[in-house]
């Protein structure tokens, strides 16, 4: 675990998210879809921007008027689109920053995930440059303030052949060419942003880029309502002969400008470059943490079915043709640097089955640091000697609620790197061999999974919706799912107690003298 301040912050985040869930329902809580929400806002801003581009006049003299025309003469339609463009961008900054903080708090930025983090950093610059150039285009007093401030800030570097700020020196200094350049930048940067957003999620399998429908509908209504009630307006037209005095800045984009005004360009550069560098190297600052070994494919046991490739949250497994004389045509191939050692692939492999003969239990893809054989042995050991009615094995993960204090005469616990590593056949095995009367599966709540997708795949496998499925003959009453964040130990204990009462009331199952049976489909 990381430092205590971060753990406390993370606990606070989980509590806030739970409270929010209670208020709006889990599907409508944007906290689990912050990256996807940023994508959604990008599309809103892109579409509204296309509309605004048509009536916009790229000349210093008429730019402001053309935007006034859109806002006032084309009300509601034009004004609404302009407001959506503005508020959509603000919302994107908000969700992007929350996304950054949340990924950091959940510790999802180092090890194999360095790529998403590292490629996320330039997105901040691109989002901000898009926003600032957008405000600049309005050519009102705020634009004048931004233009001069930004130009002075850039000039300070001394790398441009001509001073940019001199373009804004006097009323006559500004040319239409400059506005053509500006609109080009304002369109080109978002296009690069889109490309960079695509790179950002390149190494993420099934990246969540579309928020759930409920959120899309709710947020769209919210944006439209806000735009109608409080439409975006301009300041008075820019006048380079008059200084800017009292302004109403968009703080989502302009929070750094007062720093420039009061502390000067060196400080403003220092802070922006400093923060960028710090963010960029963060994944490697965390490298002191022990990184578990990547999963390994055991060629003799792999039939190339592709389950692991489809389940891996980071696309670390690919299926390739094989040439080793095996009857199977394909084989799984690991890319170790993409692997977060979650073990989800282990559970997705059909060979990860304790009913199959072999000691040790070998499987097609396995974690060197926590092999499937160890899982099976631990299940036996942790359930050994459990007594009383309602004997339960709690299977959980290292990132959700801590399991240790659930242990007792009737309860055994086993924590895995990720709940997604629980092969349905292991549950079947524990019940079939009468090791326990019931199995409680827990772990991070969906959307909060440290490794991504663990709870989602587990729930689907147990419900028989995803291979490998929990065998139909397994009594579903004896298998229970309860997702619990690290802050929800009490709720988990309560659920366990309820489950045990329920199990104790159930009749003992009839068990045929068990030998190895076909389990996972």
């Amino acid at each position, binding site marked *: 675990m990381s430092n205590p301040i971060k753990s406390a912050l993370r606990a606070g985040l989980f509590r806030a998210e739970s409270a*929010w869930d*209670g*208020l*709006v*329902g889990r599907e*409508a809580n944007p906290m689990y879809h912050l990256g996807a929400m940023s994508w959604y806002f990008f599309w809103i801003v892109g579409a509204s921007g296309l509309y605004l581009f048509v009536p916009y006049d790229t000349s210093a003299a008429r730019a402001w008027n053309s935007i006034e025309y859109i806002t006032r003469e084309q009300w509601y339609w034009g004004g609404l689109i302009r407001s959506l463009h*503005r*508020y959509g961008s*603000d*919302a994107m900054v*908000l969700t992007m920053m929350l996304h950054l903080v949340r990924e950091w708090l959940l510790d999802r930025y180092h090890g194999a995930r360095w790529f998403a983090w590292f490629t996320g950093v330039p997105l901040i610059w691109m989002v901000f440059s898009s926003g600032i150039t957008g405000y600049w285009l309005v050519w009102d007093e705020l634009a004048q*303030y931004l233009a001069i401030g930004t130009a*002075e800030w850039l*000039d300070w570097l*001394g790398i441009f*052949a*001509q*001073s940019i*700020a*001199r373009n804004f*020196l*006097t009323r006559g200094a500004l040319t239409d060419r400059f506005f053509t350049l500006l609109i080009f930048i304002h369109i080109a940067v978002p296009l690069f942003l889109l490309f960079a957003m695509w790179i950002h999620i390149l190494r993420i399998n099934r990246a969540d880029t579309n928020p759930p429908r*409920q959120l899309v509908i*709710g*947020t769209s*209504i*919210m*944006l439209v*309502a*806000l735009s109608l*009630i*409080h439409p*975006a307006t301009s300041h008075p037209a820019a006048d*380079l*002969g*008059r*200084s*800017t*005095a*009292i*302004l*109403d*800045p*968009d*703080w*989502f984009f302009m929070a750094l400008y*007062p720093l420039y*005004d009061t502390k000067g360009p060196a400080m403003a550069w220092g802070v922006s470059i400093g923060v960028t560098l710090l963010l960029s190297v963060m994944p490697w600052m965390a490298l002191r943490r022990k990184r578990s070994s990547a999963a390994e494919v055991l060629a003799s046991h792999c039939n190339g079915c592709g389950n692991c490739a489809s389940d891996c949250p980071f696309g670390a497994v690919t299926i390739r043709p094989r040439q080793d004389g095996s009857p199977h045509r394909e084989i799984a191939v690991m890319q170790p640097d993409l692997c977060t050692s979650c073990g989800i692939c282990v559970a997705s492999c059909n060979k990860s089955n304790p009913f199959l003969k072999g000691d040790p239990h070998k499987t097609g893809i396995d974690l060197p640091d926590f092999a499937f054989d160890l899982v099976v042995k631990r299940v036996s050991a942790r359930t050994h000697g459990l007594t009383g009615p309602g004997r339960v094995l709690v299977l959980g993960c290292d990132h959700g609620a801590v399991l240790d204090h659930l242990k007792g005469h009737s309860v055994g616990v086993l924590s895995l790197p990720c709940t997604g590593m629980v092969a349905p056949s292991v549950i079947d095995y524990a019940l079939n061999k009468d090791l326990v009367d019931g199995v409680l599966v827990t772990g991070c709540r969906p959307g909060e999974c440290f490794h991504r997708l663990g709870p989602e795949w587990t729930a689907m496998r147990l419900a028989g919706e995803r291979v490998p499925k929990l065998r139909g003959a397994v009594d579903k009453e004896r298998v229970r799912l309860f997702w619990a964040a690290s802050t929800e130990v009490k709720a988990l204990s309560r659920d366990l107690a309820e489950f045990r009462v329920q199990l104790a009331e159930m009749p003992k199952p009839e068990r045929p003298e068990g030998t190895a049976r076909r389990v996972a489909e």
Partner: protein
Amino acid sequence: MIKPQHIAGQIVAYTAFALMIGYFASRPAYHHHAPENALLKLSLTHAGQRVGECKDRTPEELAKMPPNMRTKQSCGRERNAVTLEMDLDGKLVFQQTARPAGLSADGRSRFYDSREVPAGQHVMRVRMRDGNNANIFDQKAELTVTLEPRQVFVVDFDEEDGKFSFQ
């Protein structure tokens, strides 16, 4: 589908979201320059005089050169650093020496300053040294102006006329 118990909660949450965006998109207001003050800008890019004297090439020297490079004089490329000073109402408010741009110091020297001054009458004195004599200022100008609140007043150097410009 939305569960009935969540409808009120969603209204509250979306309203909070909208308030957050709507508010910070234009509030709180920011006081950039005081509205009662004027803004005095000093912005110039000026190439100092060349450091060395130029010397005329002899006809023999010219003949040895490729035809497209036969300029009559041979001059060093390096230019002087430029020093610029400004007094406002008898007080020195700006003083800077700027190196010429470029690796061989053959470019222009750049100055930029922007400061608030109270509206009203002011006496400005600007002087610039761009030549080889460290004891004199090659350019000087003095002006009395009355500045309006929020007026932007620019001091520049007009390269064509070879003197300071005020606007």
